[in-house]
């Protein structure tokens, strides 16, 4: 730690950090656009201008010269310096809020806004836009620019990404993110001078005409202005309507911390968490945008052979089936929480004690069968897309060693209970369709539907075919803990209100078991 003086106040800061980060630790925020803690420092926006100075030293005695009051005389550099590109040194004097620094920032803001259309009413970024915030806080109210603003048409550069060139302030963040974090290096600055734009440059013939990474949402997030926008949330809502809470992502066993954006009891998107320094800065598109599914095609009725009915009629029938079955297979469960898994494990033990042959297998897809649970698909997302595989792995919910034996076992059992494996936002994206999943194909091939009970959050082709389908609560509707791939336990909070009477998967199974006992008496 070194001692520096900020606006006349002495503070202790970490000498390994640059000035923006070091000052942030002591509660002084320096406005900036292009600087990002995870990206290379480029110093392109020039907004983080601060005055840097040092105490005057007498060259003869090497002593600090002091004035009559005993304070050292400080000589500030005549030129302002960018705080993002300045390391902290001992005895440094920094003026962040002096008149000169304020004037410099106001001047930079005027330059940034020269070509910016200021169309905040139609811009989706408004409300979470750095340019908007700094324009209010550090910018001047007017502009001296009287010429025509540069005008480029809106361009679609990604499968889910568009760029509004007029709003771009060329902070270079997106280019650095693609190059340094994603490792694709396919966004570039094109043209020169006033005509400079960000453009997509496919690296080789195999990459398509549009950017198709899993991090287009992160690109839109990183953009400090509304230049990069995601098309699947375009114009749907305004930022200030979202009810934001801190939770975790359901998308894979990385369990990233996220901010949930809820409006009218519908999840619109996940955003990066509030304290990214302690958690994670980026989240992937697979998690970010699959949350829409939690409000669509939900299963809200008990189905018997595809027809909706009352739970009081259907549950005893299912319980009867369970009672009569001597060989039972449970498929899936890695989308359930730790608490549900523990409860189901107790139930399974109970069933086994009552001379039932119960096997539980949660692996349903090739990567899971190959035990690639701790493998990452890219720098963030896991290959296995279920949130709680680690817990299932630890709780020995793997019954048969290999896939082939398991598939044969399924055709021999009397009853199959599928836990959430045919539910949209988990494990596979809804656009791919449930009919294309490996498990669905297996069930079709071996015609297992007649003895299958689905415990499902979502309605699908499978719920119509199964013997019975039982609706359960989904991830964002309950407070629960999940085990990350490295064993860390993370907690999710309820952000959506479930439909009244909806139970968790373990509660539904427990009620089945209770009903079966009733039937026996």
């Amino acid at each position: 730690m070194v001692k520096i003086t900020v606006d006349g106040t002495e503070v202790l800061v970490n000498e390994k950090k640059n000035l923006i980060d070091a000052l942030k630790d002591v509660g002084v925020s320096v406005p900036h656009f292009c600087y990002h803690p995870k990206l290379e420092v480029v110093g392109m926006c020039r907004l983080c201008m601060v005055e840097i100075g040092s105490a005057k030293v007498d060259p003869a005695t090497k002593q600090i010269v002091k004035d009559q009051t005993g304070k050292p005389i400080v000589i500030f550099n005549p030129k302002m310096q960018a705080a993002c590109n300045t390391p902290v040194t001992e005895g440094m004097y920094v003026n962040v809020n002096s008149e000169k620094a304020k004037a410099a920032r106001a001047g930079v803001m005027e330059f940034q806004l020269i070509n910016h259309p200021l169309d905040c009413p139609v811009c989706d970024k408004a409300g979470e836009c750095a340019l908007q915030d700094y324009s209010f806080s550090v910018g001047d109210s007017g502009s001296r620019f009287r010429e025509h603003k540069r005008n480029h048409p809106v361009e679609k550069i990604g499968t889910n990404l568009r760029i509004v060139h007029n709003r771009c302030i060329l902070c270079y963040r997106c280019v650095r993110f693609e190059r340094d974090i994603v490792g694709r290096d396919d966004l570039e600055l094109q043209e020169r001078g006033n005509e400079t734009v960000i453009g997509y440059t496919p690296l080789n013939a195999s990459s398509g005409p549009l950017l198709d990474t899993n991090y287009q949402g992160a690109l839109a997030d990183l953009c400090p202005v509304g230049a990069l926008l995601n098309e699947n949330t375009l114009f749907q809502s305004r930022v200030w309507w979202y009810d934001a809470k801190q939770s975790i992502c359901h998308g894979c066993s990385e369990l990233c911390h996220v901010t949930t954006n809820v409006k009218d009891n519908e999840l619109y998107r996940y955003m990066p968490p509030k304290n990214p320094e302690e958690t994670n800065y980026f989240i992937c598109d697979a998690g970010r945008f699959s949350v829409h599914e939690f409000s669509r095609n939900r299963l809200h009725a008990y189905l018997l052979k595809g027809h909706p009915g009352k739970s009081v009629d259907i549950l005893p029938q299912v319980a009867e089936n369970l009672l009569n079955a001597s060989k039972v297979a449970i498929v899936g469960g890695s989308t359930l929480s730790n608490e549900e898994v523990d409860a189901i494990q107790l139930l399974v033990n109970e069933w086994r004690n009552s001379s039932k042959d119960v096997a539980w297998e949660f692996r349903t897809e090739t990567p899971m069968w190959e035990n690639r649970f701790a493998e990452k698909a890219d720098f963030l997302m896991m290959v296995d897309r279920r949130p709680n595989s680690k817990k299932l792995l630890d709780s020995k919910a793997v019954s048969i060693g290999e896939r082939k034996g398991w598939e044969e076992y399924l055709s021999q059992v009397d009853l199959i209970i599928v836990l959430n494996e045919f539910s949209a936002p988990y494990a596979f994206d809804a656009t791919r369709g449930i009919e294309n999943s490996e498990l669905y194909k297996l069930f079709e091939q071996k015609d297992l539907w007649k003895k299958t009970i689905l415990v499902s959050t979502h309605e699908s082709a499978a719920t119509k075919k199964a013997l019975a389908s039982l609706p359960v609560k989904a991830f964002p509707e309950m407070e629960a803990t999940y085990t990350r791939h490295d064993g860390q336990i993370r907690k999710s909070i309820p952000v959506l209100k479930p439909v009244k009477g909806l139970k968790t998967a373990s509660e539904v199974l427990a009620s089945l078991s209770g009903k079966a006992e009733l039937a026996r008496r």
Partner: protein
Amino acid sequence: MAIVKVHEKYKWKFLEKNYFYSIGAGMLVTLGAFFKTGILNKAVTIRYPEETRPVSNRLRGLHTLKRDEEDRERCTACFCCQWSCPADAIHIEAAEVPPERAHLHPEDKYAKVFQVDLLRCIYCGLCEEACPKGAIYLDGGIPMPADHRDKFIRNKEDMLEEKGGPLIGERI
């Protein structure tokens, strides 16, 4: 003590019994009004709703959506009016401007659906104040009665002006 028979003391006379004077007095008023309105054309009433009185230009009445000088819709579906509405009377659905409508809109976002529920609206004028584009004004006159609830929901077609003009700016 003598008994005073009040009903006999104040007994109505023949002409009073027939309301002769009262009818006469009434007819005089009627005749006066007849002469004043029918002959001299000095009526104070108007044939509402065919005729309406001029209202103050500060009256907050029905909502109108404005167009600009090039007859493009001013509204860009920024949701500011919906957000500021204390009665939750405004419902907007935004969409991207399709190419065939591009000449009707200055930006690439427009209000596909813009509804005002007059039964909820309290005519406070906050939407007018919140609008950054000068697109909505409460200068459409006095709301009319209707015989069905649905008729109180005004759609974009009901509110949108035919011709555009310069920004109205602050009300006088």
